[in-house]
């Protein structure tokens, strides 16, 4: 670890191992990466300091991800809604995206990431946002409104089992459970 940051106390490390899906090495690596992003004078304060969203997004693992803002938003426990992250939030995120996390918890967080307005269901607006994130933000890479309508119609027809016009968590998890690629692609490893 050297001078890159303060050491993790042993008992805290044990607790993190208990509460997350990460191994000891992964936690230590995460701590090092997190400390590197902190400004010098805050490194000693350790676990209390928060990283602002702009700093978190400089991580190469998140830089290219179109959902990076949502990821910060979902895992941040700060009250200000700015998406700043403490070390524990950071660990929570890595735990969910780790290899060993259960598919259920992965799909749960996927749902929350895709739920852009945080209202607990995926409605048409959320789906539109989602598709735009997938195809890219530029004007030329967006689907035109007619295609978008058709696509969303298709999605709802297939997955909205109770026909209430939105996709709720259990419907979402139902679809995800049939997709074998999901656990391997919903993954971020430091």
């Amino acid at each position, binding site marked *: 670890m050297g001078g890159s940051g303060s050491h993790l106390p042993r008992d805290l490390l044990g607790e993190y191992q208990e509460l997350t899906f990460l191994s000891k090495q992964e936690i230590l690596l995460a701590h090092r990466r997190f400390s590197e992003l902190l400004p010098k004078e805050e490194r000693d304060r350790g676990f209390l300091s928060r990283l602002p969203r702009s700093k978190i997004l400089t991580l190469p693992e998140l830089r290219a991800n179109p959902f990076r803002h949502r990821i910060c938003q979902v895992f941040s426990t700060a009250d200000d809604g700015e998406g700043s992250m403490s070390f524990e939030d950071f660990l929570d995120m890595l735990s969910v995206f780790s290899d060993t996390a259960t598919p259920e918890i992965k799909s749960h967080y996927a749902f929350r990431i895709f739920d852009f307005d945080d209202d607990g269901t995926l409605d048409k607006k959320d789906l539109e946002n989602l598709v735009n994130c997938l195809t890219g933000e530029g004007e030329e890479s967006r689907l035109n409104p007619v295609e978008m309508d058709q696509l969303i119609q298709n999605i709802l027809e297939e997955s909205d089992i109770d026909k209430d016009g939105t996709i709720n968590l259990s419907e979402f998890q139902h*679809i995800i459970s049939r997709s074998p690629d999901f656990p391997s692609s919903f*993954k971020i490893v430091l």
Partner: protein
Amino acid sequence: MEDSQNLRRRLPQHDVLTTHPYFKTETSPEGLGNNQQVLLRAMPCSMQEKRLLRQLNASTGREVSSWVTWQQGRYRAYRQFQEGFRNLTRICQLWKASLDEIEGVFGPGIQSYFHFLKFLFFINFLAVLLITGFILLPVTVSYDTTIFLKGPGAGLECMNYSRDISHRSAWQHLQDIFTGEGYLEHSYLFYGAYNVKQDNNRLYSVHLAYLLSILGYLFACFLWILRRIVTSLVQWLMRRCEFKPCNSARIFTEWDFCIQSPEVATLKQRSIYNDLKIDLAEQIRRILKQQRTWKQLTQLYLLRLLINGVILLLMAAAFYCIHLATEVSQQDAASLSVVNQYLPPVVISIVNVFLPFLFHALVQLEGCSPNTEVNLTLVRCVILKLSSLGMFLFFLGHRVLCAGSINAPQCQPCGYNKLYQCWETHVGQEMYKMTFFSFLTTLAFAFLISLPRRLLAKHSSCALARWLGKEEFLVPHNVLDIVAAQTVIWTGIFFCPLLPLLGCVSIFLTFYIKKYTLFQNCQPSAQLFRASHSKFLFQTMLLLGLFLACTSLGYVISSVRPSQPCGLFANYSTPWQVLPKAMSHLPTSALLIWDYATSNVFCFLLLMLLSLILTVYISQAQANRQVIERLKRQRAQCVQEKWCLVKKLASHLVHLP
């Protein structure tokens, strides 16, 4: 307590607190030690909240006995041990870091190719282990292989096999590495070097071991591939349209969170965009298709028939070229140059590089949807590649074993072509050359085509260079190459028992060459490739290859006269004869059981039993499908009822004073 209220306020929309098993209080205190930590980790809430939940749970009056504390301690120690063990095995895992790196940059679609390489490496490694353990070690340790055998009643004509290699020059020795002649020909690399006398007093029979370990290995490969096919078949079936929500699953699971490089991310976005566009276009197309007139339909089908005819003609021409190449390469083997000897693999490669381009051009005239076009071309390429291999084997068999022309003058005395005194070794050399050549092409493609192309695309500004661009990494075609190489190894294992070792080395190096090409010279293909889809496809190709190899080997083992001056089976009329001969030494009771197990009655019983089991499974699957449909309907009705009640309630509320 304020915190816990805060927590309950934050979470209700996700129904965590009521539905999660952690809160089901009926967990027995004994089981708590293990389950608690597992469940807490799997809770969808933040670290602070988890900590709080743990405190809450501890303070709700459950006394923690020393037994439970001890159990928890033990569980923790067990986990630490498990993690330590996992760390240890991680060191032994082959290519783990490389595979992770590839997945991180290019996603699991391309990674699946490298996983496949790893799988093939292990398949070959298994063969090396089996052959060293059961054949090579016993032969080198306890047998004298310098005695040359004499077949029963064979004339001199069939026995003049020269083992003299003293007159070869240094240049020839160098050539021998490529052709497998000279010193290599009489090493344990090839069948002909295993000269062991049949000895009934020994408990261990090398003849039997040779046959059984090769057959057993092929059977083990079959089972291994079948197992992988079955697991990927389930995934594949789920992705079929009738069974799965195509669009929604794609939208929700398409993004690879592993991707780190912005360029790859942009590319991925483009490919998703294209894919969605194609899908939507196909939807419209399907509607249009239903409105086609009779005349248009007949025109279309005639066109397709014509194109398929053209493709068949092209393939026939390709096979003729392979036939010619085989004939040239087999003319008087002694005086041929290395280039001539390598003619068949060269022609096969050329055919398989150029015909796919033509297929690709022709398929666009057929008026299929883009997805079908890609799949159709791929299927045609697979057929071409495997059948060109099969054709080469056929022509080789025709030439060497006189299959179909047994009355020709050079065939009559020995039962095989007398030009090839030790024909197994000769066939083994052909397979050796094929394997060697496929590795050479991989090497040449990486450094003579991909690398210059990248440099050209980077530094030149002419239109052609820009149009060519960087090479795309086409997963299916790369897999096809490696499957063909594996088929050759399987076919050659009988004639050249150490061929899998060569395969191991070649795959090991191929992994690094391909990785270098991928990272330095390639861009990922614009066409999406899903890992689950590809697994099924690769394994099926591999199974086809295995069948091809087994067919040719089965023919050789069951009905061809082994060469008389060399090899293990010189005294037998066919290699298979070893088995009945060994069986005859068994006690009578064992023979009786064997007779019964191979009789028609027993097979019939077995067949009946299997079909019974199959019927049970099929009916169960049908019943399950019906239940799913019913449950879906029920759920929709429930929600409708709920809405009805809400509406009623609303109208009543309005009327209230």
